[in-house]
């Protein structure tokens, strides 16, 4: 069982995608380009959907709720996966949180 308190971010966290990141969808998956470093990042289909929702939802809780609506997944698992992905994206400088 995972513990959401182990994360730096929570469902109340707000996310801002970096102005220097470009997104391109390729057959359901996505490629992100971080312009300052010139490094490309790949997202699988689930990660791609999370990325899209990050630009639409006010908080990570909203992202989790939308993902649960679209996919057959428990709230606990969904929350864990979204928070983990957001932390990885943040580490790579692709977004900031508040």
């Amino acid at each position, binding site marked *: 069982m995972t513990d959401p308190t182990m994360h730096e971010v929570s469902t109340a966290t707000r996310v801002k995608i970096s102005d220097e990141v470009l997104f391109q969808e390729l057959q359901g998956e996505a*490629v992100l380009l971080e312009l300052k470093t010139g490094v490309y990042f790949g997202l699988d289909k689930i990660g791609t959907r999370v990325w899209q929702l990050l630009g639409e939802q006010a908080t990570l809780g909203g992202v989790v709720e939308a993902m649960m609506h679209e996919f057959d997944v428990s709230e606990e698992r969904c929350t864990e996966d979204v928070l983990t992905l957001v932390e990885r994206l943040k580490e790579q400088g692709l977004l900031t949180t508040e």
Partner: protein
Amino acid sequence: MIELTKDGMTGSADSGALQEQFEQTHTVRLPGLIRPDLMRIVSAHLEQSPWDVKEHGKIGREIVPADPEAMFALHFVVNGPGFLELIRQITGCPRIEGFMGRIYRMLPDPSHYDSWHSDIHQTEERLIGMSINLSPTAYDGGVFRLRDEQSGNILCELPNTGWGDAILFRLSPNLRHMVTAVEGGVPKTAFAGWFKSSACNFFSMMLEADHSKV
């Protein structure tokens, strides 16, 4: 109107009408192709970059940015699958696989010039040309001209001074094109290159070369 954004292509176009126009005139204008927020990012990087002189043999002389960020951004958006498919439809070139170009600046100076050329290459299959205007301020001169090689007749003259506007033009052994000298005090900055066929899939090359899985 079609727009290329930070998140891919948006909008729609009457590809049938554009295809007809391209068939008749060998050129098509795509106004406002690059969305202003993306243009501002590109412009900011170009303003920060040093510029180097580049010679193209007897064809022309220009300056090019030393920093790669703006080039990365523009290659990334124009090689999106949706945009490439639109270009295939407009131009009737199903073999298009990708776009490769360069950013250049022509100063209003006699030492910066372009002259008639075809862009046809012996080893690369260059199919269609494209030039996107990156100049934030309208410039004088710098007009794209296309002519029939045999008759010498000018087939069209296209100023391309709108910020983020693009023009597409056909490449053929029977056609020559050039950009007239820039006049006045404002330089012309553009992203120009060719849609190509095989061995030019930008994302395949990029993903093979350097990427991370998040």
